[in-house]
């Protein structure tokens, strides 16, 4: 029985969720540099557990950069450097005892452009399990069904699990990437503009999925779409020129922002 469904039956309203940890994932005085160019300035943010946090802001303000630091993906780029700290459940992700491999397993990522491997649907979903040494067929089969159901894709693909993932539609591919990420049973899901390449119908599906997934995962989503932020996020962080300008309840940000820059941005006066 897939976990998402179980939770749905157990918890009828989102308010009856167990108490959430306010600083599930947090950045402390975080600065980030691409070579000499500083991309993030003194970021302090606490991302709450099992909520959807949206990152908004004009192009180039550092949303993706911060997101990609949460799972240390940016370390793959040569010549980068950081100052300050990022903590998952209070523990520094830069601690010597943290393996970057297991960090990336517990903080899954979905990219702007869906990027399924040129393999079968099945092999895409079990990729994370296979590389961690899992090869028992029953475990893999179970994970495929659980993850695909979790990503609301199971019904559409259950009869073609062994066909190439590249034959799926754009929206299906993106949901497959989500399934692939949740197959690792991560704690956090990072999504960098997951709908920007999708048509409106596929977008609605992914947004519904995000609202569903937050019952189990802590989600951070980067978006350029204000409606999307209001539709599916609980908290919103507004970034501008590498700085975190304002971070508050989504409702508050969009109805009554404290900062002038935030207001200018959400009312479309710039960006």
């Amino acid at each position, binding site marked *: 029985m897939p976990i998402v469904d179980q939770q749905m039956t157990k918890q009828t309203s989102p308010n009856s969720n167990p108490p959430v940890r306010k600083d599930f994932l947090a950045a402390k005085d975080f600065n980030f540099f691409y070579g000499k160019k500083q991309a993030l300035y003194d970021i302090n943010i606490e991302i709450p557990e099992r909520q959807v946090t949206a990152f908004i802001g004009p192009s180039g303000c550092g949303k993706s950069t911060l997101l990609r630091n949460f799972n240390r*993906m940016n370390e*793959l780029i040569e010549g980068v450097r950081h100052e300050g700290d990022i903590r998952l459940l209070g523990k520094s992700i830069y601690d010597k005892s943290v393996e970057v*491999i297991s960090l*990336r397993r517990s903080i*899954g990522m979905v990219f702007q452009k869906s*990027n399924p*491997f*040129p393999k079968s649907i099945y092999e895409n979903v079990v*990729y994370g399990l296979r*590389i961690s040494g899992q090869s028992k067929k029953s475990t893999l089969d179970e994970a495929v069904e659980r993850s695909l159901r979790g990503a609301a894709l199971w019904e559409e693909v259950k009869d073609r699990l062994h066909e190439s993932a590249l034959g799926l539609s754009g929206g299906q591919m993106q949901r497959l990437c989500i399934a692939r990420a949740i197959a690792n049973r991560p704690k956090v899901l990072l999504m960098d503009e997951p709908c920007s390449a999708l048509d409106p119908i596929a977008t609605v599906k992914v947004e519904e999925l995000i609202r569903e997934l937050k019952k189990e995962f802590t989600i951070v989503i980067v978006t350029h779409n204000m409606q999307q932020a209001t539709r599916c996020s609980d908290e919103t962080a507004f970034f501008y020129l590498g700085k975190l300008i304002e971070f508050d309840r989504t409702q508050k940000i969009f109805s009554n922002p404290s900062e002038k820059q935030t207001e200018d941005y959400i009312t479309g006066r710039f960006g």
Partner: protein
Amino acid sequence: MDNIGTHSLDFFELDHNENTKAMGRSLTNRILTGICVTLSLLTMIPLISIIVLLLKNGLPLLSASIFTELPPAAGMTGGGFGNAIIGTLVMVGLGLAISTPVGILSAIFINEYSQTSRLSRAVRFVAKLLTGIPSIICGVFAFAIVVLPNQTFSAFAGGVALSVLMLPTILLTAEQALMGVQNAYREASYGLGATRFQTIVRVVLPDALPAMMTGIMLAVARAAGETAPLIFTALFSQYWASSLNEPTASLAVLIYNFSTVPFPHQVSMAWTASLVLVAFVTIANVAAQTIFARKN
């Protein structure tokens, strides 16, 4: 190139005047296409005439015994060049066995591990230089490091010479193949917690393999036909080789030897050997392409 979409847009949205311009453009387009087609047909002429010539001169002597018998002595008729076929296969195989792992591992190193390090740049530079080195130098090199110390011409020395000849092609095409793998795949793999090694083995290599195969086939095609590196290293033999450490016949050297003697039978055999050589290379090429086309 203009695509169909823009053309139909032109016709829908532009006024009459623009319409004639569009027609003018499509005329130019057609003329250019015509020129391109003609030129590409012209490039096929040498290729086709070679094949016609090979078939015309090589077919008469083609028979089963050509593949199983030893070369005839000077002035004699009959015989075949079975030993040369095996020699070529063995030496090209040896060359591949050396150059493929070295070339692909180097390409992985310079593209996946340290793209901009000084060592990578040096490897890339040397490989590019090596592609321009005349094949005879590869022969001289293998002569110096294998034939002289061993005191004998050998298939092994021939294989070494061919591996030097093949290495830069294999390395550089493998690097291109790796560069052709979408970065999005690597990101997805790292994002799921894969190590670099896992990413290379499970995602990058499978995707790059068909393009790498093309490079390997190019190298084989070139090496199989080279005479110069083998004259200094494997030399030639009238007999079946019983080890890798003795002078060994090859198709290329046989063609070279037989085409320069005054005996018509030998000259004719050189044509047949050329035909067989070309057929081998073509078959290997097509086989590799279909195997990898089917896998994807």
